[in-house]
């Protein structure tokens, strides 16, 4: 089973940019690329392991790490210097995040766009499902909704544009694809992605100690389940009686 491809070129220089007077952005590039994202997550890990006093929080994205800081405790220049120091020997050793097998129902009843997505890719819906569920997806970042993962990369043959008319609402758990990304929506939301399935697992529950199930750097395999299993698991999830555990551990926190 293969994961996203990695660019082989030499790492490009990073930049530290102001983002207001209480945040800076360490920018590794301006594209969605696993190598860039691994550098982002490696820096986030380093800062989590050896916190710099004055940092309030960090926000990893596809290609940059935003660092919010308290300017009364550390200045931009001092923080930029210390972060630069961390970047010097930050070779992006691929980071083995936790591995999850996330059940997803691809039945047309909960996958309104699957047939169309398969048609555009020129393959049968079953083939689309077996490609989508037969690979490891990398969690680039969480965002848009609480605990919502952006996963990639789909093979180029499965890439398709967003829907021309976004839906005003898709159900919680919906699995959407567009370009080479997959998103899983923890809450009901308006959405322009093509919905190809639905997971019964609650990716977000603010009552849990770890409210977000997934973290940036995790790896996900979608495990096809039928409508009956989906309904059963969804009911257990809603009662808080089914919480998915990773099948492989990640780095020590």
């Amino acid at each position, binding site marked *: 089973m293969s994961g996203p491809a990695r660019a082989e070129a030499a790492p490009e220089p990073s930049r530290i*940019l*102001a*983002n*207001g*007077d*209480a*945040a800076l*952005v360490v*920018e590794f*590039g*301006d*594209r*969605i690329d696993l190598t860039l994202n691994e550098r982002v997550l490696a820096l*986030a890990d380093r800062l989590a392991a050896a916190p710099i006093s004055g940092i*309030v*929080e*960090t*926000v*990893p*994205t*596809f*290609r*940059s*790490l*935003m660092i*919010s800081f308290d*300017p*009364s405790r550390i*200045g*931009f220049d001092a923080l930029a210097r210390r972060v630069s120091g961390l970047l010097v020997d930050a070779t992006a050793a691929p980071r083995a995040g936790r591995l999850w097998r996330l059940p997803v129902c691809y039945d047309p009843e909960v996958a309104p766009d699957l047939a169309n997505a398969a048609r555009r890719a020129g393959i049968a819906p079953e083939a689309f499902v077996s490609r989508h569920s037969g690979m490891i997806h990398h969690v680039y*970042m*969480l*965002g*848009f*909704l*609480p*605990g*919502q993962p952006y996963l990639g990369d789909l093979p180029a043959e499965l890439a398709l544009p967003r829907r021309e008319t976004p839906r005003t609402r898709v159900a919680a758990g919906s699995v959407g694809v567009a370009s080479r990304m997959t998103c899983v929506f923890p*809450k009901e939301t308006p959405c322009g992605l093509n919905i190809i399935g639905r997971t019964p697992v609650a990716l977000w529950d*603010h009552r849990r100690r770890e*409210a*977000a199930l997934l973290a*940036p750097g995790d790896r996900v395999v979608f495990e096809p389940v039928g409508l009956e299993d989906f309904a059963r698991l969804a009911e257990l999830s809603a009662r808080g009686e089914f919480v998915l555990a990773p099948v492989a551990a990640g780095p020590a926190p």
Partner: protein
Amino acid sequence: MIPALRILAPGLMTTVQDLGRVGYQRLGIPVSGALDALSLRAANLLVGNPPDAGGLEIIASGPTFAVEAESARIGFVGAAVDLVLTREGSPARSVITTGQSVLLRRGDRLSAGSLRGSSTLYMAVEGGFDIAPVMGSVSTYLRGGFGGWRGRALKPGDCLPLKRPQAPERGEISVDAALFTPPRRLRVLEGPQSDHFSEDERTAFFRRDYVVGPGWNRMGMRLAGEPVRTSRGYNVTSDGVVRGSIQIPGDGLPIVLLAEHQTTGGYPKIGAVISADLPALGRLGVGSRLAFERVSRDEADVARMAHATLIERLPSRLSPLDAARSLDLPTRLGEANLVSGVIDACAWMG
């Protein structure tokens, strides 16, 4: 009976907010919190609360509520507004003012009208609301549907539980709200995508006047005016944004992010409003005029320190209400329609 404020009419959008839910943006959770944190702090001080206690954020028009507690001391700071108090058994109504503490009794009804001069008004109640924090904050996160009062704006019939069944008897105090006069222009530090705009375009941006358009909510506001042209397109790969980020989308009309902004954004950001001016940003509403002023990092630091000093010295701006001005309701309820001494801190925004 649980001491509470019973909401009879909620106003346009009234939510519980504190200074925000800090530390969870990597999970996609916005910070949220009061749009105008300075006014919330001052409202809390009026009633003896810690500055970061949760209060009500009132947008555009205010709520009407009834006191279901022995007594409750409240204070309003922010927009100008007519506050009308109706006391059970008393035929007259009384107009009370913002910027001072007021002791309400069981059965009192307080009604807040339309806001003027600012889009936000804050109400604190002594002791605070008895609401469990979620992830360290009682701020309402509307889109996520959690925090505050049931994760939503108030509705008629809501009973907001109070921590204290009654407020201690003491003299009332006022705060010098003239302090909150914001600068005429919002100061901006450029970046992180200022290289998407030519020097000429940036200079032009800082000379223009904008108006807040109808697309305004707690997440952000869209401005109307002259579009900003980028030299490198209107899409970037999503990266982190902050409260005050000025994003330039495809139509060139700036979007300024507010308290409940999403954690990342895919438009180039020409700059961000500096932290000292965020409370002022939180007073703007649909139709407000604004302009931006480019500042250096050093100027932003000086402004931030001045703002920190202002916050630190807020308590010195409190003063006891003298007997004449103090709202001794039993005696003053006989007077009809007292002249409201509302402080219009934000007249500059027109």
